[in-house]
């Protein structure tokens, strides 16, 4: 393990100043549940670990009609147990509740889950279906990046080594919509997703037509991805079981998985179809009940 120094700045300016050492020398840390393990396994070799939990901007948390703002260092547990999130962003609540064990959820953060950029990150597909945006502070000031453009590959994001993710911003969910996240793991707990799917369906209450469909996939591509063709198939249609099945089958086309210790590529594709159908079906049931 690299023997690093530790700093826990209490204001953003100081945090940004410390980040300017840059180039992998400094690793920002929120919950630390990924980072500490990675450093011990020598997958990251920081000379300084910057604990950002004491920076107020990263602890922001605000939900209402305008949407939801979650500071990057807010623990998953807080998000998954928030009645507002459960009500308006169920897929986010469900996915945040799946990030590791209770012990992990008390430390792990939404920001950390996103910045770690594992293709299997549970909260990523949910954030994608809500069209979340990432608020980033860097040497050049602040900027907002749509989450779809945030993930670049395994462990790679739109953040430069000098940037800090401040918060995630979720617009209000569309009216008459429901969303759902399901992942597949061999056990019931303590596993990384072999495949994960978040779906969002909005229906016109009058016609019953789908006004918006969002389907995002985890663990089946170098980064969390949207299944655009499947979405397009659903929008404008009155969803039927057959249509959902077809959309689920089409979602598989967005999956370009690898075979690894957690599952083969073929199996992952099969799971995507199952999970896509089940999430869509659940959304539809909720909307019609």
């Amino acid at each position, binding site marked *: *393990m*690299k*023997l*690093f*120094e*530790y700093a*826990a700045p209490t204001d953003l300016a100081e945090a940004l100043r410390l980040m300017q050492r840059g180039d992998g020398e400094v690793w920002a*840390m929120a919950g*630390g*549940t990924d980072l*500490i*393990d990675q*450093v*011990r*396994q020598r997958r990251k070799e920081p000379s300084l*670990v910057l*604990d950002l*939990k004491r920076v107020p901007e990263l602890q922001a948390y605000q939900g209402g009609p305008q949407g939801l703002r979650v500071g990057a260092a807010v623990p998953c*547990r807080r998000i998954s147990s928030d009645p507002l999130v459960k009500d308006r962003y169920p897929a986010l609540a469900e996915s945040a509740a799946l990030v*590791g*064990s*209770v*012990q*992990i959820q*008390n*430390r792990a953060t939404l920001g950390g889950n996103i910045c770690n950029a594992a293709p299997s990150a549970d909260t990523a597909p949910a954030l994608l279906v809500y069209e979340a945006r990432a608020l980033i502070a860097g040497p050049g000031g602040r900027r907002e990046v749509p989450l779809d453009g945030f993930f670049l590959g395994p462990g790679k994001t739109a953040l430069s080594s000098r940037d800090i993710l401040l918060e995630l911003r979720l617009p209000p969910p569309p009216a008459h919509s429901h969303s759902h996240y399901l992942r597949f793991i061999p056990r*019931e*707990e*303590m596993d990384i997703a072999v495949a994960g799917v978040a779906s969002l369906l909005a229906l016109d209450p009058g016609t019953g037509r789908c006004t918006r469909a969002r389907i995002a996939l985890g663990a089946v591509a170098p980064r969390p991805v949207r299944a655009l063709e499947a979405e397009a198939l659903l929008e404008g249609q009155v969803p039927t079981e057959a249509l959902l099945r077809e959309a689920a089958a089409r979602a598989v086309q967005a999956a370009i998985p690898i075979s690894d210790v957690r599952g083969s590529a073929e199996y992952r594709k099969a799971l995507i179809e199952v999970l896509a159908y089940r999430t869509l079906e659940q959304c539809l049931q909720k909307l019609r009940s």
Partner: protein
Amino acid sequence: MALRIPPRIPLRTTINGDPYELMVKPYQTLLEALRDEAGLTGTKEGCGNGNCGSCTVLFNGLPVNSCLVLAPEAQDGHIVTVEGLAKDGRLDPLQKAFSQHGALQCGICTPGFLMAARAILDSNPHPSEKVIRAGIAGNLCRCTGYDKIVRAIMAVARGEVD
């Protein structure tokens, strides 16, 4: 030739209600600091990467894997370890229940289970079996198959242990 070793950091923290002033390594985990600096070896390391729960402690009231917390993060924090479960010489009901129900065998995972179980009951005094199982699903036990652990926690929840 010498290894460049970053200087230690003073850590002021409360452990089991007692004030501690420790000099910790910046790269040291809370688990290592508890065991090696504070001399509290009741908290165990089973895996070192947050997958077994043996090192579970309560950090500001919430269960965490102390192997995934850096010691300096505990600055001004409140830690409760297995050594702090009994109060004024009285065992926590969970400690009694684990003994009476045979919820421990080798005992290496027991401190972590007790802390996770304490956290379950602190947040939900009357948990269902499902809630109990979910609350200890981050803790691995290889000796018991969990049956007696779950029963011991249920017994405390039902007020069968004083």
